[in-house]
């Protein structure tokens, strides 16, 4: 299965009638492996800052998580494994796997919990596969 298929069928799929606004799978080096059409264009330093927060949990809290120029306030995640951000009625979930970052961006009416389920479910699967 190609990385793009993971994005199209597992990240952008419907969950209880809602779906992510956009999603992507990015390598730890910041290279995009696959992304949905609407996924924002991001700067290398933005992705580097996200990676740094996995290594040093709390790094992003004072400045916010910035992706494609959009600032998300960092809320409780799981140190070293999941970063969650909030902006208005939407937000972002980033899960780290062995070699990649799974990123999901959502907005109303999708709920934070639903975004977490979609992103983290795929992340768990990739972790199990050693990817």
């Amino acid at each position, binding site marked *: 299965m190609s990385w793009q298929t993971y994005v199209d069928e597992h990240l952008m799929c419907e969950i209880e009638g809602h779906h992510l606004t956009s999603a992507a799978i990015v390598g730890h080096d910041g290279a995009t492996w696959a992304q949905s059409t609407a996924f924002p264009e991001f700067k290398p330093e933005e992705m580097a800052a996200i990676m740094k927060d996995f290594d040093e949990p709390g790094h992003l*809290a004072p400045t916010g998580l910035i992706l494609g120029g959009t600032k998300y*306030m960092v*809320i*409780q995640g799981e140190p070293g494994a999941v970063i969650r951000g909030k902006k208005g009625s939407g937000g972002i979930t980033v899960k780290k796997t062995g070699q990649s970052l799974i990123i999901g961006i959502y907005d109303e009416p999708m709920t934070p*919990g639903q975004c977490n389920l979609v992103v983290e479910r795929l992340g768990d699967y990739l972790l199990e596969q050693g990817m």
Partner: protein
Amino acid sequence: MYGGDEVSAIVIDVGSYSCKAGYAGDDTPKAVFPSVVGSIEQTEDTDDPKPEKEADSASDSKNGAKPMDVDKAKTKRRLYVGQELEFRRDHMEVISSMKDGTVTDWDIVDNIWNHAFRRRLLINPEEHPMLIAEPSTNTAQQREKAAELMFENYKVPALFLAKNAVLTSFASGRATSLVVDSGGGSTVVSAVHDGFVLQKSVSTSPVGGEFLTDCMMKSLESKGIVIRPRYSFKKKEISPGEYKIVDLDLPNTTESYRLYCMRAIASDVKESVCRVPDTAFDEVAYANVPTTSYELPDGQTIEVGADRFKVPDILFNPSLSQTIPGIDGFADSIPVRGLQRMVIDSVNKCDVDIRKELFSNILLSGGSSSILQLKERLEKEVLEESPQAARVKVMASGNSVERRFSVWIGGSILASLGSFQQMWFSKAEYEEHGVSYIQRKCP
């Protein structure tokens, strides 16, 4: 997805001092009772062959099954919850499920829940989704433990965990605010942004209502006042209309129960007479303030003077407590901060873009926030220490019931929203994915 619209959810908030429980959609919790419990260790020789029908004993609440997590080496004990705590019993200790804001005894929590559901609300928990309020500092393990107990012991159809500060913010109709929650056991300051706690901002202090009560109690005692617990005396009529206090000899009363009862009286003194001073308390300036009279349960009338202002000022200046004879110093070496410092520090840990909004939306909640003039004093102190351009606004419900129960009320509103119903962590999901799923479903 759980179809939560069909029946009212139950909202439950077990604080360090009291438990609040009731139906989602209601204005106030139906059941409010102490979250400390009485405990008597049982030995085989003293087992009561006919346990009191109303006792919420550990074995009773689980139909004879051994409570989860009870240390098998631990002697069996009988727990007394709620109203039962008001009756003195020989050898009954008063114990808490929490230490430093963290649950350390889940058996007690289990008994409190059982009491709330089956004795007070008279519901079958299998029929109602449960919204549990949790501390902003709750750990992942604590959350999973709570979820596991709910699904395994109570067979609830669905569950959600929401942080206290988020619920308080919600109760005031704000998605973003700085919540200053001064409850019984502690004071917690948390920034809430778009309905979520910004974890780095959370600030806690051991100075809460109970600490102030202890300060009041020690201060009164240091002036020679004897506080007699209600159980410890009776009034004897020595002539028509004239009574004499007769102390009762009850040698098997525990020290913890005696303290619990004395605290109840000192707490009422505190709530009746205290007022936050306009500026920092000064011993000399307040030495001659007019006193207020208060009649103790035994008929003694006491006069409270400077303590009226000194005790509540400890919230702002915790080191004041060291001037009260008998008050122990704070355990850890980290200096305890006053309210205004906690607020400033909390805001400064947040992103610069939202600090202005936080300063202008400071919400007070918790029973101790109802002390007269606290709101005005906090606004003044924060204004003095905040950045020049900041507009500082401290808000509190004018209704002290709403202030005290704001966490529960926020939960009541949240759990009755149509848009919330898709958020529930259902029993089916628990059975399929396990308890750690709670971290995703209730972020």
